[in-house]
């Protein structure tokens, strides 16, 4: 029954993330975002049983588990039951250069992939909205090999021309050399993923570019939901839909509670 239901946008996004993951990757699940966590878990349960997954400083392997109990509670010390080992957070930070893939979120995401978790407003001393803070994203996204940006909200409020503050540097004011000029070793943001679309960055300008529309979103809707002009390629490829096997694993082993199926807030 579950498997007959068409893939939702979030499930399609999770499957997209899973397909970007290689078997030898070291991945940090820094946040409690069900879509990114689902993508990583799905990869582990299919083609990436050797991927090293770090959660809350535990190194876990979930390839053979029957099911993951709650995608909404990923950073929870009970992940210790699947841990091969644990390192201090300090040790993890010294080893960020080894991380192949990390995820950043943002109150704001701008057209060059810079993200803002600090706050909204012109005046730092009198913010309209105070964000949660940078967590580790400044240092992690500067140094890790690559990162994806994920947001549950795709609206002009979140996808802005320029961030009010930058907590994690993407491509600055644009340009393929913007990171190397600053000496930032990581290769920067590769994809921006929302429940409406998957975007990447133009190779030269590093301006955000549409890659795939996700199920349920039209081009008009996407353009109206984005606070700046996205580059839209002439030939837009469709996102390859999840296979039956991927959907089955996603629904029966990864996302038992249905965060990706029915909850617009997750």
């Amino acid at each position, binding site marked *: 029954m579950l498997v007959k239901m068409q893939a939702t946008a979030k499930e399609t996004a999770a499957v997209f993330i899973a397909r970007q993951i290689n078997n030898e990757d070291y991945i940090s699940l820094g*946040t*409690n975002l069900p879509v990114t966590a689902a993508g990583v878990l799905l990869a582990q349960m299919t083609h990436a049983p050797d991927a090293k997954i770090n959660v*809350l*400083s*535990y190194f876990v392997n979930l390839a053979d588990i029957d099911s993951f*109990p*709650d995608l*909404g*509670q990923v*950073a*929870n*010390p*009970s992940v*210790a039951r699947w841990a091969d080992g*644990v390192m*201090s*957070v*300090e040790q993890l*930070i010294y080893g*960020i250069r080894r991380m192949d893939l990390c995820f950043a979120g943002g*109150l704001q995401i701008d057209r060059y992939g810079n993200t*803002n978790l*600090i*706050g909204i407003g012109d005046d*730092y001393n*009198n*913010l*309209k*909205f*105070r*964000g*949660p*803070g*940078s*967590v*580790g*994203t*400044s*240092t*992690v996204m*500067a*140094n890790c090999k690559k990162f994806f940006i994920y947001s549950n909200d795709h609206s002009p409020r979140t996808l802005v021309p320029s961030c009010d*503050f*930058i*907590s*994690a*540097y993407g491509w*600055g004011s644009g340009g393929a050399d913007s*990171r190397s*000029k*600053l*000496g*930032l*070793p990581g290769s920067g943001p590769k994809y921006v993923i929302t429940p409406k679309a998957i975007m990447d960055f133009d190779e030269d300008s590093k301006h955000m570019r549409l890659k795939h529309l996700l199920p349920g979103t039209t081009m008009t809707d996407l353009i109206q939901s984005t606070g700046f002009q996205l580059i839209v390629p002439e030939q837009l490829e469709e996102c390859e839909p999840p296979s039956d096997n991927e959907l089955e694993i996603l629904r029966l082993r990864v996302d038992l509670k249905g965060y990706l199926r029915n909850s617009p807030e*997750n």
Partner: protein
Amino acid sequence: MSRQQLLISLPEAAAMVKDGDKVGIGGFVTTNKPMALLREIMRLRRRDLTIIAPPSSMEVDMLLGLGLVEKLITPYLGAEAIAPLGPFHSGWAGKRFAVQETDLGTLVAGLRAHAMALPFIPTRGVVGTSIPSLNPTLRYVEDPFGGPPLFAVPPLEMDVVLLHASQADCYGNVQHLGATFVDQLLAQAGKKVIVQVERIVSSEEIRRHSENTSLTCEFVDAVVLAPYGAHPMASQNHYRVDAEFLKEYVRVAKACVKGQPGLFEDFVTKYLDNPGGHTDYLSIVGLDRLFSLGEGV
């Protein structure tokens, strides 16, 4: 001469924290927070505190709500999925405390610099971000070897560090039996270190697996017995986060932001001021509720 025993009571431990102190708080977001120690300190209304905390949650939010904080240094304040978008008791508009904007890598560099008595540790982590322009303690520094400039992170001092762990002996040898987060670095960098534990065990028990000792007594000044002392946060090996309790607090705090401080005041009276001590707090929360938080999802 016999070995010095470091076991003291919660009130004695709280008395080690003075108005104006720089206080380091261990744990990570909603795990292993020294809540019993913090409740004691909040009950005493120790004020003008500088709070230095790795990713933090309700404990820091309450300190802010009570007006006890002069300066806040933390890379994160929230409760992940329970409150994904930031501080709940957002006294941030018109706030009366200073914020020293940071991220986790920068915080670790500052603590490490202090522990090693270095004037600074260079970081690349905040290059290109807004953090250096918001945090005047960070300074541009040239790379003497010719690379692009970096930022110098100066030492972060702490008068007292509060930690939560699984077990310790009465001499101050501590075992987390799981992730240590930033606790060991905080302990190396702090002037005084107080650790609350779920249980006190014998020296023999510690020595049976001395490889599990995460902080030897060299780094510990006082140990406090506080079973269920991390509640409502999770305590590794012992109990999960009390998500319903956190949700209740988030509701109360958000009402406060909307100009209804009554609920926050009631919460403070019920859980902070009325209980005569830690065991009293636990009975108000209720043993059935506490026992239901045992491991297993």
